[in-house]
């Protein structure tokens, strides 16, 4: 391998670049033959460590990804051949050593069979991240752990970072991830993209899990997860190529990201600004264009739009205010009605009532609001408060704002609702 001599900090930078760009690709490739994600991750992190010392002395290899893959594979082989690993095989206690050795040979054979040229030609390293995403969101995996699993094995987040994003104690999250990986290995969930027949039933949970990453992205402690969710959604759509709902999700996540103020730094808590009070000039025009392009790709395919396409179209209508200077409430009503038709949810009904309030007046909006949900639903109370406020029913509005503030789990949202309430009482 060609190498240029570099100082240790450059080695760090090169390793980090390689890590960011290819973590998921390498884990997918290393784990695919046996389904052992934990071992693949261990082998890869060992290879990264080795890279830091080796590359600092000998220079960064011409093909860092191929180098990491080769070193990680050697580490996997060492583990498979080790007495400790073989002792953990179910049978070794009782003892036919040949069968255990055969098992190891079969594994090595499985690895060799997918790897005839990868070490030679860096461009031949296949991308198995799509397979990995289908593994993470396999129906035999607990839905609650699918998104955390994607964050860890596809994007390389530490269990502690995932735990923070989900507001779960780190030890508990680590335990869940370990269990899920063990399950993938032991039940032999295949690293395979479902065929067309199975796609209709297998794709929705994958989209759902990527959407889950997007949904938690703005929670406190989630850091820069919003950009990662977008990366994941776009990667999924690009790898699938022709799935309209995957492009719809990519569009939804990209357009939402476009409206977020410049990436929030950790500990930086900008005040919450409701969508219709946001200044469109602060939105990211490049991301809006990108999101619109994904939405266009989604609609290239025949058939009625799915849930994510409709949600993306709703975002696109909001984003269009940057160009037109006004919100097209009627377009929003059409889209929310369609969304309520194919994917009814309390959230969509509440949003529809808010839009109705803008078109037909606050009383019509209040009438369109579904009955009070038994377990407090923050958007219902916030929307009711806003509609009452617009209808001039200050007393009831103040009460509803207080209720909505109580239910808000985001501090900035709570502050905003309480400020509204104060403004009412002041006036």
């Amino acid at each position, binding site marked *: 391998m060609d190498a240029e001599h570099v100082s240790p900090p450059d080695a760090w930078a090169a390793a980090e670049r390689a890590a960011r760009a290819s973590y998921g690709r390498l884990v997918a490739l290393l784990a695919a033959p046996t389904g052992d994600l934990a071992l693949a991750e261990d082998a890869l992190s060992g290879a990264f460590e080795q890279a830091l010392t080796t590359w600092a002395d000998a220079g960064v290899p011409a093909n860092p990804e191929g180098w990491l893959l080769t070193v990680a594979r050697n580490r996997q082989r060492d583990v498979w051949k080790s007495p400790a690993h073989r002792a953990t*095989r*179910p*049978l070794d206690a*009782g003892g*036919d050593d040949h*069968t*255990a050795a055969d*098992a190891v040979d*079969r594994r090595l054979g499985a690895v060799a069979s997918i790897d005839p040229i990868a070490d030679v030609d860096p461009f031949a390293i296949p991308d198995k991240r799509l397979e990995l995403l289908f593994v993470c969101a*396999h*129906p*035999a995996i607990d839905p609650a752990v699918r998104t955390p699993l994607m964050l860890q094995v596809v994007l390389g987040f530490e269990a502690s970072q995932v735990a923070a994003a989900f507001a779960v104690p780190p030890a508990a999250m680590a335990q869940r991830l370990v269990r899920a990986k063990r399950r993938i290995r*032991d*039940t*032999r*969930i*295949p690293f*395979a993209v*479902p065929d067309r027949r*199975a796609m209709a039933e297998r794709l929705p949970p994958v989209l759902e899990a990527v959407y889950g990453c997007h949904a938690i992205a703005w929670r406190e402690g989630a850091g820069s997860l919003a950009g990662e969710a977008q990366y994941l959604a776009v990667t999924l759509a690009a790898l699938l190529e022709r799935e309209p709902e995957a492009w719809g999700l990519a569009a939804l996540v990209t357009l939402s990201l476009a409206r977020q103020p410049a990436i929030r730094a950790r500990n930086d808590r900008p005040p919450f600004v409701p969508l219709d009070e946001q200044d469109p000039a602060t939105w990211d025009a490049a991301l809006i264009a990108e999101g619109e392009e994904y939405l266009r790709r989604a609609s290239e395919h025949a058939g009625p739009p799915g849930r994510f396409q409709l949600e993306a179209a709703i975002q696109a209508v909001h984003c269009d205010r940057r160009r037109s200077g006004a919100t097209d409430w009627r377009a929003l009503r059409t889209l929310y009605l369609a969304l309520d038709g194919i994917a009814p949810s309390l959230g969509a009904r509440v949003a529809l009532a808010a839009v109705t309030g803008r078109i037909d007046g606050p009383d019509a909006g209040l009438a369109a609001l579904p009955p009070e949900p038994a377990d407090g639903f923050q958007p219902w109370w916030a929307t009711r408060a806003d509609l009452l406020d617009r209808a001039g029913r200050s007393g009831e509005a103040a009460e509803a704002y207080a209720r909505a503030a109580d239910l808000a789990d985001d501090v900035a949202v709570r502050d905003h609702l309480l400020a509204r309430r104060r403004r009412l009482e002041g006036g």
Partner: protein
Amino acid sequence: MRYTLLMHYPEATEEQIGAEVIEEAQRAFASYAATLQSAGALVGAEVLQPSASSTTLRLADGELQVQDGPFADTKEQLGGTIVLDVPDLDAAIDWARQAPPLQWGAIEIRPGSVYTVDGVWTPNT
């Protein structure tokens, strides 16, 4: 890779089920077994007698206890097992969803750990 399909369903007497339904179930089971066999996925299958015929052994303080009845007295009982040899969990799920007892109960798919070949334990790989 071997998987065992554990078929759990509520127990009922022949009278409760009715002769016609039983005949239909038997036809479905026969065709299912034939399909598995011709696909090369079937290792073996067994439908069990009702759990009332079960005898459960246990050691209590080293003493053998023999008890009439099943291991756990639940509404749904283990009614039979089918052992498959297929490449992965997706293949096992595909076969399990075609199993007749899915119409009247639940099917648990459990990967095997070890199995015997000519009386010698062999790892399931």
